[in-house]
Structure formats: structure tokens, C-alpha cells
């Protein structure tokens, strides 16, 4: 039996974001929201572990009230219950991670915490490791293959320049990469059934976090301007390739 927590974040659908060309700021109003993709990989892995070992899956989110609807999607996929903790104004990664770790402590008897390696909007990858730090649990980051058994977990991890296999005893925190699995789609019956699963709403103060100041302040947010150079090489193929390579090298794009 595994008592698993999956941390999931509601994000804006980054594919829909446009940058205002005059202010260079991303336009975030009216953009549809969704659960960060890699968090669904984390839930899928949790479901597979539960299918093998039995147990319970709780999805935990720090976010605005409308995140509740998105939590229902995760309940439809196979999580058993949800917890929504409101995100304090200006909360940084430190506060979000600490809120989650307090939530995990409040839930109690947790064997595994699964997170996506990073959220698709900010992609900082801090929350999983910070939770492990607060709880003083082992952390297995960037896992692309996970083998869990009673009381311990083994993760194959992509460290960029090398692959590492790490084993830890439970409780432990895992972050997973997108390659680990293909998240399942819920069936109509599962969607209907999700309405009956509980979503608990906890307050910041009941987690003892209402006086915690943010340490990192967001000063500005700018979109990355992408413009085509519209350079066309019209010579014969050999010359054109040479010219293209030369141009790319000049731009510092060939390493």
C-alpha cells in the first residue's frame, strides 16, 4: 500500500500566450488554464504505482479558487481526492513549496510525493527539491523510469550528461520527466465519477503560514520577441548551404 501525494499546478496554456508587440509583455488575460503537462505525467506514474501496490492518491495544489475545476480532471484520471491550498498574493517558490510540505505533513503517513520536473509556465524546477528539503526526505529528481515496491523506490534519472539510477527508502520525493509515460485520458464514466470524489480546501493559516514573507519579488515579466530574419539564399544548393552555415556561425548558433 502506498500513500501517494501528487503536486499539481494550474498554469495558463502557454501555447495560447501572445506577446503584446508594443509593451513586449505577455498577454495573460483570457488565456485558457490547464494542469501543467508534466504534473499529469507525475499523476500517471502515481496511478501505475497504485495499480501495482494498492494505496491512495491525493492531488495537492497551491492555487486560485478556480483551480478546483482542474483538480477534478485529475480526480477523473484516477486520483482519489484533492487538496486545494490558496496561493497567497506574491507567493514565491519558497512559500509555495513550504505550503505544500506543510500540507503533506498535515495529511500524514505519506510514502511518496510525486511532482513534475518543472511547471510548463515558469519551468524553474524548484518545487519538488524544496519540498524534499523542508521535509528532509530523499529526493529523486528528473526520473524517467520509476520502480516502486513496499517501503522503497528506485528511479532512473536523466542528469543531462549522464543517466543515474538511485534508490531511496520511503518517504521520498520524486520529480518525473515528460518521457516517463503517456498520461491516460479519463473515460466518460471516470469523469462522471470524479464529481463524487472530495476536494478539501485548506487555509494558509491552518498550515501556520500566514505570516511568511516572500523572499523573491517578481519585478517584471517580458515576452521573448521572435522575429524571422527572412533571409533566403538563392544560389545553387552547394553555395547556399555554405552561405547558410556561415551566417549561422556568425550568429553564434553553431556552438
Amino acid at each position, binding site marked *: 500500500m502506498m500513500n501517494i501525494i501528487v503536486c499539481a499546478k494550474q498554469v495558463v496554456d502557454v501555447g495560447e500566450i501572445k506577446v503584446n508587440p508594443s509593451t513586449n509583455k505577455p498577454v495573460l488575460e483570457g488565456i485558457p488554464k490547464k494542469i501543467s503537462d508534466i504534473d499529469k505525467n507525475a499523476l500517471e506514474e502515481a496511478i501505475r504505482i497504485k495499480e501495482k501496490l494498492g494505496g491512495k492518491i491525493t492531488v495537492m495544489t497551491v492555487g486560485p479558487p478556480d483551480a478546483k*475545476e482542474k483538480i*477534478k*480532471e485529475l480526480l*477523473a484520471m484516477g486520483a482519489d481526492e484533492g487538496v486545494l491550498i490558496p496561493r497567497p498574493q506574491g507567493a514565491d517558490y519558497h512559500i509555495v513549496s513550504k505550503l505544500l510540505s506543510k500540507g503533506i505533513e498535515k495529511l500524514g503517513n505519506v510514502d511518496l510525493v510525486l511532482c513534475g520536473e518543472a511547471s510548463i509556465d515558469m519551468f524553474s524546477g524548484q518545487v519538488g527539491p524544496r519540498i524534499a528539503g523542508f521535509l528532509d526526505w530523499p529526493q529523486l529528481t528528473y526520473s524517467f523510469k520509476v520502480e516502486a515496491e513496499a517501503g522503497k523506490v528506485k528511479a532512473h534519472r536523466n542528469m543531462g550528461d549522464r543517466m543515474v539510477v538511485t534508490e531511496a527508502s520511503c518517504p521520498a520525493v520524486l520529480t518525473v520527466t515528460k518521457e516517463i509515460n503517456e498520461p491516460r*485520458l*479519463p*473515460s*466518460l*464514466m471516470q*469523469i*462522471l465519477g*470524479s*464529481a463524487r470524489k472530495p476536494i478539501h480546501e485548506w487555509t494558509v493559516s491552518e498550515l501556520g503560514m500566514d505570516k511568511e514573507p516572500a523572499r523573491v519579488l517578481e519585478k517584471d515579466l517580458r515576452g521573448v520577441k521572435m522575429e524571422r530574419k527572412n533571409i533566403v539564399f538563392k544560389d545553387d544548393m552547394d553555395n547556399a548551404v555554405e552561405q547558410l552555415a556561415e551566417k549561422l556561425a556568425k550568429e553564434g548558433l553553431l556552438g
Partner: protein
Amino acid sequence: MILELSEQQKMIRNMVREFAEKEVRPRAAELDEKEEYPHAALERMAELGILGVIIPQEYGGAGLDNVTYSIIIEEISRACASTGVVTSVHNSLTAWPIIKYGTEEQKKKYLPILARGEKIGAFGGTEPNAGSDLGAMQTTAVLKGDHYIINGSKTFITSGPKAGIIIVFAVTDKEAGPKGISAFIVEKEFKGFSVGSIFEKIGINASLTSELLFKDMEVPRENLLGKEGDGFKIALATLDGGRIGIASQAVGIAQAALDESIQYSMQRQQFGKPIAKFQAIQWMISEMATKIEASRLLVRYAAYQKDAGQRISKEAAMAKLFAAETASWCADRAIQVHGGYGYTKEYPVERLFRDARITGIYEGTSEVMKMVIAGSLLR
């Protein structure tokens, strides 16, 4: 009436859209080209509950409302109109008449099989000489002991070569006109059943369409649907619901045409800027979007009325008439937006153009829709 979808309906739409994008759209062009039935998609749709969307939960379905059903057919058809019509016929034209008119035994026997997708459904109404004039059908059924013996043929049957359960209409009393028509639940394994020619069509090529031939076909007496003579009534009521499905399919095709046009017009550069910057293109896009939204609201209104237990002949006819004409018009405009490329097989709009055309013909032509609408207004 609430125009906003419920959170549950949105969740279902998102799920079906993701499924359609990932698993249906990537194969749509290939299946069309090869005239190949969408077996893999149907298998997945059974797992996801889509093949039993309107079947009550006690018989293994999801038991959902018609508005949700309409959303699902639209999303599937947006990715592949062939898969859309197979799903629509399976639910609206096969499961629904059993739900509405079937005995408890018939429901227990057939609905779970349809919900699980073990057998795909079809509807045997049209004959070579009985299309819009369904009452002129010539297929006969004669009761002989415990079986009806059915002789005749049906044509233009969606999923004909693949269907396992078919609602077949036949004349049991020649003197009684339309009131002499009866409905039967037929299994393809019944003795005397065979599949005739498969048609070569210009569109919805992945939904195979064929003749069905009945030669002294033996149908157990208990497979009579409703009472003898109920057939014409059952056919008309079933087709009212089917029109919600086809109108939803048409909205899906039209939406796909708009999606493609928006994407293409923002990329395609002429005279130094994307063609979307030209008013000529903007007007086409605007008119497409407006007609699609109007069609969608008509379909949802008909579906909503059906959920409310109202008679929907007029509403469903209006929805199908407008949505079908919109689908063909939008597909035509989409080709115009794409210019010469739109006329090639490199872009999906040519398939949409071919697929859209059928929506104004099957399950009641646009002209029959106008007859239905006029009939309810000019009493």
C-alpha cells in the same frame, strides 16, 4: 435554458478534443485515402465510453444528455468526419431506438454490447426506391412460427460492411401503407443476411457504406422492435435524434474548415504580409465563424429540447439544414482562403470539402428538412 456548458460538459469536451487531436486526426487523411474503417479509434472510443454515451448506465453506458452527446460528435468530426458519422449512427440510430422502444430483454441483450463497442450499430431504412420517401419501402417481413422471414435489400447503409447490430425496417402489412412498416433488431449472423456492394464515395471514405441483402433472413420474433406497424413512427423519431448527430458532425467539419483557414491565413504571406491582414480574407473568416456559432447554437437548442422531453422534429430539422449548408459553405470558403494549395491533396481542406457535402443529403436531405419545417409551420 443555460447557454454556458457545465463544468462537467467542458471536462468531457476537453477529454474528447484531446483524444481526437492525438488519436483520430493524425490518421484521418490516411484512412480516407485507403477507404479504411477506423477500427483503432472505435476501440479506444469504446474504452472511453464514447460508444455508449447516451446508453443508460444500468446497461453499461454513460447515460449522458443530448447536449453532451452533440459536443462529443462535433469534436470527433472536427478531427475525422467519417469517425464522427460512425459514432453518430451507432448511438443515435441504433442504440437510441432500442433504449426508447426496446423491451427489457432487448435492452439487456443489445445495449451493453453496443456500449462496449463489441458490435457496431447501423440503421437499415433506405432502399433503392425508398430514400426521402421512406414509406415506399419494399422489403417485406412475414411471421412464420417463431421467426419473421425478411426479404429485400437496403442501400447506402453507413457501417454496412462492419456493423454487427442493425435496425432494419420492413413491411409487415402491405395494405396499411406507412402504418404497415415494422422495425427489427437484426444481427449480422442471422441466416439469410449478407452485405452487398460497397459504394465508392466522394467523401467520408473511412465510414464504409454498403448495401445489405436479406434473402429469407430469419429474425426471431422477439427481435421485433415495438409493435407491428410501429416501424414508420420509430424511424421518424429515431431520425429526429439522428439529425442532432449529423448536425453536430456538420458543425465539426465547419469548425475544422475555419481552424485550417485561420492557421493558413496567418502564415501565408502575399504582398509582403500574411493574407489574414487583408479584408477579403477577414470577411470570409468572420462569416464562417458567425455561421458556425449559429449552427452550433441551433444544434444545442435541439439537443436541449430533446433532453427536456420535447418533440424536436422542427428544431432538429432546422439545426441539420443550417449546419449542413454551413459545413459545405465553410469548406468551400476554406479552399478559397487556401487558394491553389486548397485545391491540392496536400492540405486537409479538400477532404473537408468532400466530407461536408454528405451532411446535406443523408438522414434527410436539406429539402426534406424544409418539408419538415414547413409541415410544422403550415398546419
